[in-house]
C-alpha cells in the first residue's frame, strides 16, 4: 500500500513541477530552461513568507504572483525578441536560469535555508501511516490539472491558445493576437513553476540550486508527453512509478537515473511518447 502511495505522490510532485514547462513548450515550442530558476524563485518566495511570519499557506499565492511578475518581465525583455529564433531562445533561457541562480545567491546568500511547512507529520491513510504533506500534493496536482484543462477548454483565451498550439500562422490570420497568447502563456508558465517551487520546499531545503535537480527530469517528462496535460499525467505516473520501483527494489542511486533513461528509450522507440497521435 505504501508503495502505491509512493508512486502516486511521486507522480503528483513531478506533475506539479512539469506543468509550467509543458504549457510554455506547447504554445511557444521552446523548452524554457529557466524553469529550474523559476522553481528556485518559488522556493525563496516561500522563504520570504516564512520570514515575514505569515502562515506557510500564503507561500502559494505569493510564489505564484512573484513568478508571474518575473515571467512578464523576462518575456518582454528576453524571450519576445527571440521568437523567430527558437534555438537562440533556448540558449537564452538556459543563461537566464544561471542568472536567476546567481541573483538569488547575491540576495539571499549561498547557504541552505529553511521554510516552515504548513502541515507536519503523518496520517493514517488506507491502512498505512503516510506523510500528510505528500497526500496534500496529490490533491494539489489534481486541482492544478483540472484548472489548467478548464482554462484551456472553457475560456476564450484557452480556445485561442489551442488555436495557436495547433497552427500559429493560421491563428494569426484569423485575427488572434498570438503575441498576447505567448505573453500570457510564458507568464503563466513562470508562475506555475514558481508555485511548484513553493510546493516542494516542505520536502526539500531552500538553496540557490533548488531547481536544478528537477530540470532534467521535467524536461524529459515534457518531451515524452507531447503537448497534452493528460499525457503528462500518464508520463509522470509511469516514469515516476518506475523511479520508485527501481529505488525500492534496485537501489536509489539507479533510481535517480530511471526517468532520464526510460524517457530516452521511449523516444527512440515511439517518437511521439505518450501523446496520442
Amino acid at each position, binding site marked *: 500500500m*505504501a*508503495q502505491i502511495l*509512493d508512486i502516486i*505522490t*511521486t507522480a503528483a510532485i513531478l506533475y506539479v513541477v512539469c506543468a509550467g514547462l509543458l504549457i510554455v513548450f506547447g504554445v511557444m515550442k521552446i523548452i524554457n530552461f529557466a524553469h529550474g530558476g523559476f522553481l528556485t524563485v518559488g522556493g525563496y518566495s516561500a522563504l520570504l513568507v516564512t520570514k515575514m511570519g505569515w502562515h506557510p499557506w500564503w507561500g502559494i499565492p505569493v510564489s505564484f504572483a512573484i513568478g508571474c511578475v518575473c515571467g512578464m518581465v523576462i518575456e518582454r525583455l528576453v524571450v519576445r525578441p527571440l521568437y523567430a529564433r527558437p534555438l537562440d531562445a533556448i540558449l537564452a533561457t538556459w543563461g537566464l536560469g544561471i542568472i536567476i541562480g546567481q541573483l538569488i*545567491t547575491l540576495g539571499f546568500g*549561498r*547557504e*541552505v*535555508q*529553511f521554510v*516552515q*511547512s504548513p502541515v*507536519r*507529520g*503523518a*496520517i493514517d491513510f488506507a491502512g498505512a*501511516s*503516510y*506523510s*500528510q*504533506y*505528500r497526500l496534500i500534493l496529490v490533491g494539489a496536482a489534481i486541482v492544478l490539472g483540472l484548472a489548467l484543462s478548464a482554462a484551456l477548454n472553457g475560456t476564450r483565451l484557452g480556445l485561442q491558445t489551442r488555436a495557436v498550439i495547433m497552427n500559429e500562422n493560421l491563428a494569426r490570420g484569423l485575427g488572434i493576437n498570438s503575441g498576447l497568447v505567448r505573453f500570457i502563456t510564458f507568464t503563466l508558465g513562470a508562475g506555475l513553476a514558481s508555485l511548484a517551487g513553493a510546493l516542494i520546499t*516542505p*520536502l*526539500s*531545503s531552500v*538553496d*540557490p*540550486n533548488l531547481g536544478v*535537480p528537477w530540470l532534467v527530469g521535467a524536461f524529459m517528462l515534457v518531451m515524452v508527453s507531447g503537448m497534452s496535460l493528460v499525457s503528462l499525467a500518464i508520463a509522470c505516473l509511469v516514469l515516476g512509478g518506475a523511479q*520508485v520501483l527501481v*529505488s*525500492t527494489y534496485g*537501489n*536509489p*542511486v539507479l*533510481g*535517480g537515473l530511471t526517468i532520464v533513461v526510460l524517457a530516452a528509450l521511449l523516444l527512440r522507440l515511439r517518437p511521439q511518447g505518450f501523446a496520442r497521435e
Partner: protein
Amino acid sequence: MKAIPVARLASTLGALCAGALMLSTVAQGADPIKIGIPVGLSGANSVVAPSVVQSAELAVEEINAKGGILGRKVVLEVADDGSGAAGAQKAFDSLLFQKKVDAIITMETSAARNAGLPIVTRAKKPFIYTSFYEGRSCNKYLYVNAWVPDQQVAPVVDYFMKKYNSKTYFLIGSDYAYGRGMLAFTRKYAESKGGKILGEEYLPMDGTDWTAIISKLKAAKPDALITSTAGGAPNVTLTKQLRAAGVNIPYGNLAVDEGTAKSMGADADGIYISGSYLTNIDSAKNKEFMAAMQKKFGADLKTPNDLSVPQYEGVYAYKAAVEKAGSTDTDKVIKALGEVAVEGPRGKIQMNKQRHAPLTIYLGQVQKDGNVKLLETFKDVDPGEQCPNIK
C-alpha cells in the same frame, strides 16, 4: 599600422621587471604567513562553511593582535571548493600554486579532501584537516584534529542499547566516502555489540527524494535509526521527509551540527547528536571564545559548532608548531604538529595519535527550542588505529 619602437618597448619592459623585483625585496621583510582555506561556500557544505571562516578569522585576528607568528603577520586566503572534488582541485591548485599559501587548514567534505591531498603532496605543504570524517586518511602532510568514527559512533550506539534497549538498526547515508565510511563502521560496531542491521541505504549526494528509502525504513520497523549524510541540504531534506513520514524512533544523526539543528526548527526535535564540541561546554576557554566570537561578529555570528571550533584550534595548532619549529619549513612543522598541544574551547588537543587526536566526546539531544541538551560526556576517547604506517 604604426610600429612600436622596439627599443622603447624593451626599456618599458625592463623598468617593469625592475619594479617588480624591487617590490618583492621590499615585501620580504614583513612577508605574511598565508593560511589557505578551501571550503564549501557553495554546495552541500554551504550551511556550515561561513561559521568555519568566521572562527578562522577570529583566530587570525587574535594572533595578529599579539604580534603574529614569529613576528610575521598571518593572512587568510579563502577559496570556494564547491563542497566536492572538482571544485577542490581548483581551490587547492590556486591556493597552493598561485597564492602560495604556507599551509592548508580547513574543514571540507571527504570528497574534496581526497581530491586535494595529491595537490598538497605535490606542493609539499602542511595540511590540517579540521572536519570530523570517516577516518583512515593518511598522508605525510596531513594532520586531523577532529573526530573519527571510532570516537563518535560508539557513544550513540551504546546509549541507544542502554536507554532504549535497541536491538535492530536502520542506516541511511549519502553516497560518498564519509557517508559510507561512517555507516560501515556503525554496522561493524553495532553488530559487535549484538545489534542487528536491518538495512543500509544510500542516496547520491545531490539527491533530494528519500521516498523509497523511507518506505523501506518503515517496512523494516527497526528499533533505531542512524544517519550519516553530507552536511547541509541532504541532511535537511532527509530529516524533513522523515518527520513528514511520521518516523519517530530514536534517531542518531552523525552529520548534524548544532547550528543546522537549530535552524531546522521543530523537525530536529529529539535527534541525538554526538561530537567533540557543544556551545554550552562549561569551561573558561570556551566562554572566552564564545564572548570573543559574539563581540567580533555580533548579529552576523554563525553559531560556533563541531566543525568551526576545530578550525579555530587548527590555526592555533599551526601557530604552535611553527613557533616550535622556528620556521615555516614543511618538514619541521610536520614534525612539530604531532608534538604541540593547543588549549582551546574543546579542551587540550594534541594530534599525537597517528596524526589524530584523542578527544572528549559529548552525547546530546536536540530540544524543542533547538538547543542541545548534554546527556553524557566521554573523556579523552582514543581515535584508535588510524594511520599505523605513518611515523
